């Protein structure tokens, strides 16, 4: 029964899983509270380590994979044995993750993504991972000559601009809290300005403009420095290779990510422009395949970040030449927009929220004894902050109403939506749409409005058309049915 093609994962599997066995660790910790002396502790530790080690060694022994006739067979389980057979043609994309420790051992975590779920060969050697990627892709590409190869990299300048445009305020705030002293040392060496001694020397009653400007400058510099470091760590050595029918994406310093994306598997292309991106003429290009939720990329969640930053023209050209998507042809079309009578519905939660906030804040200030001395100032300040928040909220609402639109083109469904002040243009292939649903309630129904959802085949690429005219559902339904008939033929 033993087959010579069967291979095991890397031995580091035992080590990494030894520390990931949370259940056993919890049992150990619960029992550790009842330990009376050192001897019992040592016995229990030995038993815990022994059981865990035995379990991991057996798991390692029984976890195998083999490649036979364009099929990957993955087996695992000690008592309950499971065998997964994956045909190469059902593989959506393959990606690898390498963290800092994996780099020391020359190993990777290889994720074979399927329509639903994934098979993770974690960890295996880089050589073996390359072999699997090559074998899987070569069977799909059938000896194609790559004659359209070109690659895109992000320079230090690009990464710096990205760091400025995507500055991480929250991380900076926590970094200042955690590393206050160390940061002060660095800054005092660079700028000859010791912020802590300066704060101590300033008279708090006198408003010092220079002092405020210096503080603001330091925060801005810190913000940029931290954003820059985070961006460099994340997108270090960014490289996007465009081959005939696939894209190869590699980036990362501590956690190296490598992906092979077949172009035909792309479900949705998304061009995102934040407010700062728009001002400087930059865009962020993302794509979603069937199973891109498996990409361990916390900051961008479920999207594959194809081009984190690039000039608008460059993105449009890349889409045209590499993904055969001419975005300009969809401009000035007859887009369907949110109806005018949906404005009130969009506003209703904000109105309730701000009314409650206004009443609550003023009652709080009125009755709080701590505010008695400065009541007038605090009234003014609180209501001014609320007014600014209402203004921002209103501007965001106007932004949403102005830009939200959708269009059913010949070969794509185009959905333009907003998130805060960002504009996101999504291009989804109609053949990738599965089911369609509409929801409405009594309030919305009175105004002939509903929420339409186009459920894509893969996860996280659904299109939500919120607050659209109910009759638009029929239009979308007929469009999808027509496209499916054409594709079937």
């Amino acid at each position: 029964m033993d087959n010579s093609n069967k291979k095991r994962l890397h031995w580091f599997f035992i080590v990494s899983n030894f520390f990931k066995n949370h259940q056993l660790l919890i049992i150990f910790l619960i029992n550790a509270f009842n330990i009376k002396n050192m001897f019992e502790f040592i016995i229990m530790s030995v038993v815990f380590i022994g059981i865990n080690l035995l379990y991991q060694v057996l798991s390692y022994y029984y976890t195998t994979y083999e490649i036979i006739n364009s099929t990957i067979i993955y087996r695992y389980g000690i008592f309950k044995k499971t065998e997964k057979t994956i045909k190469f043609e059902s593989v959506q994309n393959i990606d690898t993750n390498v963290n800092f420790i994996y780099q020391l051992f020359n190993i990777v975590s290889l994720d074979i993504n399927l329509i639903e779920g994934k098979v993770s060969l974690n960890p295996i050697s880089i050589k073996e991972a390359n072999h699997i990627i090559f074998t899987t892709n070569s069977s799909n590409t059938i000896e194609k000559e790559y004659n359209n190869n070109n690659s895109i990299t992000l320079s230090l300048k690009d990464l710096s601009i990205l760091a400025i445009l995507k500055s991480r305020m929250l991380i900076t705030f926590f970094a200042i809290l955690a590393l206050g002293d160390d940061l002060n040392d660095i800054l005092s060496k660079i700028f000859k300005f010791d912020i802590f001694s300066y704060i101590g020397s300033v008279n708090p009653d006198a408003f010092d403009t220079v002092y405020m400007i210096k503080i603001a400058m330091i925060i801005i510099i810190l913000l940029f420095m931290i954003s820059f470091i985070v961006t460099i760590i994340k997108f270090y050595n960014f490289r996007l290779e465009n081959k005939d029918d696939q894209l190869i994406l590699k980036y990362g310093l501590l956690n190296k990510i490598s992906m092979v994306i077949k172009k035909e598997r792309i479900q949705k292309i998304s061009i995102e422009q934040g407010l700062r991106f728009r001002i400087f003429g930059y865009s962020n290009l993302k794509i979603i395949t069937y199973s891109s939720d498996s990409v361990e990329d916390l900051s961008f969640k479920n999207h594959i970040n194809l081009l984190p930053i690039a000039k608008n023209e460059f993105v449009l050209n890349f889409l045209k030449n590499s993904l055969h998507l001419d975005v300009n042809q969809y401009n000035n079309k007859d887009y369907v927009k949110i109806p005018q009578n949906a404005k009130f519905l969009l506003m209703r939660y904000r109105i309730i929220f701000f009314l409650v906030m206004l009443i609550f804040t003023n009652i709080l200030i009125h009755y709080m004894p701590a505010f008695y001395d400065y009541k007038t100032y605090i009234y003014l300040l609180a209501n001014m902050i609320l007014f600014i928040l209402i203004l921002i909220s209103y501007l965001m609402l106007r932004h949403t109403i102005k830009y939200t639109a959708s269009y059913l083109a010949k070969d794509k469904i185009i959905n333009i939506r907003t998130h805060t002040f960002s504009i996101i243009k999504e291009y989804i292939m109609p053949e990738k749409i599965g089911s369609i649903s509409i929801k409405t309630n009594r309030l919305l129904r009175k105004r002939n409005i509903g929420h339409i959802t186009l459920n894509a085949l893969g996860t996280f690429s659904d299109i939500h058309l919120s607050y659209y005219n109910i009759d638009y559902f029929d239009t979308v339904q007929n469009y999808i049915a027509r496209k499916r008939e054409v594709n079937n033929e």
Partner: protein
Amino acid sequence: MNNIFKTQEYRLDDDVRKIMILADFIGLGILSTITLCVSIFLIIKEYISMKTFFIILSINLSIFIITLLYSLFSSKMYQKYYSYSFTKEAIIITSGIFSKNKDYIPYHIIQNIDVATGPIMRKYNYSNLKLHLIRGYASINYIKNDKIEAIKQSILDNKNQYNLKY
């Protein structure tokens, strides 16, 4: 507007109301019995006073009556508004009492079909048809057992007309 949520070809039978009410009644009955048993145990052991016992009992009874009344109402509304149809290219399900839903499920995304039934449904010869889709699942509820095989076969036949690659 009304056309979008219009009643589809197939509606639920009147028996469905009975099944829903019976299921709710049994569930509530079990819950109330457990509460009653626990309360009696507590009063025997003198953990609670007679007054507290009657408060628990009256709360229990109130919940029972309110839930049963809601069950009578919701089962009627569910039966009234739940309908489905099979078109050439998809299954269409409309439902919802207060908020209306309509689902359009093309045949080609159906992977496999399960027939699921419980003891009460079995007594009345009803089953649910659970459709496993490429992503997630959908369900056609309360179908008569004598019709279910024909419906299942019809869905599979329709599905086989499509040969789409993902």
